């Protein structure tokens, strides 16, 4: 059983009587430990897919199981708990809280998880260590460069030990050099066994992942799985089982 199982998911909006199918009958699996990218031009539905996978949104039709939990019937409160404990988000614009310093930003998910103050501080510093920013823990986000802010956001996404991390255009707001470094960090995290879903419009960025899913007009247009072809560039031998046809 895959970590994420998406079956026939559709998301339909009604705008002024017109039906808009943001997602149209999408099915896919994501295995634990996979490094996968979802590519597509803007308006293709990739963000909608990520929001649904990330429990920020619910599908109109279809079922999603995340880590064995069916999420389409969950209450908002349960969805919040799933986001808190099973999912980490990394955003294009970092989305750190400007009034909190770095370590407080990283602690934030654990506050909602109800961890003790000591545990929060320990784990937040651990996560900052992992992204190489332990020495900046008392800085404000505004005192950091874009790349550093994105590392803080990654530390925040990882701190609750989620089963899956969604990165939405994580390099979109960074120069190419810094973007490279962030992608390298994701690759490194992937080798440590994290499940990472990279959402991007840029095929070059998607090229770092062994598996790619291309979305176009709300449908899966193409699936590329280098692991099946033995072309995986990552040193890790990814899980063999690919997407269901």
């Amino acid at each position, binding site marked *: *059983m895959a970590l994420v*199982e998406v*079956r026939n998911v559709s998301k339909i909006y009604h705008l002024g009587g017109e039906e808009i199918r943001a997602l149209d009958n999408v099915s896919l699996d994501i295995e634990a430990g996979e490094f996968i990218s979802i590519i597509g031009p803007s308006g293709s539905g990739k963000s909608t897919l990520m*929001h649904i996978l*990330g429990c*920020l*949104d619910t599908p109109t039709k279809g*079922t999603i*199981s995340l*880590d*064995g*939990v*069916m999420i389409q*019937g*969950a209450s*908002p*409160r*349960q969805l*919040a*708990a*799933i*986001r*808190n*404990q*099973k999912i980490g*988000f990394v*955003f294009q614009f970092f*989305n*750190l*809280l400007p*009034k909190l310093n770095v370590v407080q930003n990283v602690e*934030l*998910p654990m*506050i*909602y*998880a*109800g961890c003790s103050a000591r545990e929060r501080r320990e784990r937040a510093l651990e996560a900052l260590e992992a992204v190489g920013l332990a020495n900046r823990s008392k800085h404000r986000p505004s005192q950091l460069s874009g790349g550093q802010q994105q590392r803080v956001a990654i530390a*925040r996404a990882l701190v*609750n030990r989620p089963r899956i991390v969604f990165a939405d255009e994580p390099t979109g707001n960074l120069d190419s050099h810094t973007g490279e470094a962030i992608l390298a960090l994701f690759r490194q995290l992937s080798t440590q066994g994290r499940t990472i879903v990279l959402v991007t419009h840029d095929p070059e960025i998607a090229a770092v992942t062994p598996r790619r899913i291309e979305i176009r007009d709300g449908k899966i247009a193409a699936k590329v799985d280098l692991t099946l072809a033995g072309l995986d560039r990552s040193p890790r031998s990814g899980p063999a089982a690919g997407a269901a046809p």
Partner: protein
Amino acid sequence: MKKPHLPHLPPESAAAVRHSTMNIWITVGVGFREIWAHKFRSLLTMLGIILGVASLVAMSALVKGMENGAKEALVAIGGLEKVRVEPQELPPEQRHLRDQALGLTINDVRALAAGAPLVTRISPEMRVPANVSANGKNFRPFICSGVWPVALEMSEHTVLHGRMFNDLDDEMARSVCVIGTATRDELWGAPDQVGREIIPVGETLYINGVPFTIIGMFQHYESEQDRKRREAEAAARAAAGPPTQNAGLSRDRGRGGRGRGNFIFWLKNATIYMPLNTAYMKFRSGVTLAGFGGRGGGGGNGGAAGATGDPRLSSLELKIMNVDLLPQALQQVRNVLMSTHRGIEDFTFRTQEDWAENINTFIRNARLSGGLIAGISLIVGGIGIMNIMLASISERVREIGIRKSIGASTGDIFVQILVESVVIAVLGGVAGLAASLALVTGISSLSPTGNAPVITAGAMSLAFAFSVVIGVLAGLVPAIKAARLDPIQALRYE
């Protein structure tokens, strides 16, 4: 394990993602940080609550002061157990019996003493419209009456110097009197005018030209507050020493004396009592001793010649055994008097209850109107908080989106905004309580009334509780609004 047919979260999975609500103290901390981040804005927001709480407490302190003053005055005039019986115009259906109406006489007193067990004391009074003179000065006292010695207890008088006249003085109709300090002040001078207290016991006083010997003087009656102030001034004067004495004294007079609130005490001080028999003999018996020319010394025991005399009393004062038995006691008195007056209803009762009722009505109205105004200002303060909280959440849509995306539930966001609003209101409430102390001190030093404002713990806790409730109510709408934000749209919000 679980297959995808399951419509809802499997129990153990739900337990695994059990949502622990954010610690309330962390939330309060977040609230404080938010308030601290916008110090000036928060202060302005709190100002409404501060003023509301301060005015509520100050208003209640002022009313409480008035109430205390009124109660003190009520005790000074004899308390609730006192009933006055006064003569009254006959009712219309008895008008034709007017010449049969006796009025209140000493007979009524005797009959009541024998026939009204619920009445513990009876004090007849015969008023004499008087113009008194002594020491080359004239004065019209408020009360100049012939009474029995029992009037002392009845009207809560205390003789401080000399003695009260007794039954023997009454029996002999001696020309003696006991005066209040206001009479002394007017005729011989008040202590703070002449610099020492004159005790005119033994002096002669002319009441409507009839010489009387002063045998006693009452103590000086004043409100609790006046006494304290006078003592404080005396202490200050003693500390300052004799050279500055006169300057200090002349300054006192402006503020002291017959202030509005002290009027009832001044009236009580402006009293002259003489024995009832004396009053009758000298002023009512129809024989004028101090008449001009004519009679000379011959009419010494003119009581016998009272054919044209007027034995009517101006009033009776009764003390009832127990306030709770007032209606029954009045009925007894009425029955007795109806029989002595042969069914002619030429008397009426005057109880302090009416007065106490008036005081209570006044206090209630003052409290109601003051409370209303203070309550409105608190509500305005609450609206201010709501307004700021609404502005604050639309400023923080993105923050709310971020918090939701990392796992804050709608409940967490709701509580966060609500706590912020309550923290503002509570801080405002605390500051308001402090401000109320300053306000009350300011009011009483700017315009000193007869009654010192009294801040009660009840008023303070009520105002504080009200401010907390206002905080909760004001935070409700913004908190609901914030909690309902859709995380995706909130994250996209610029």
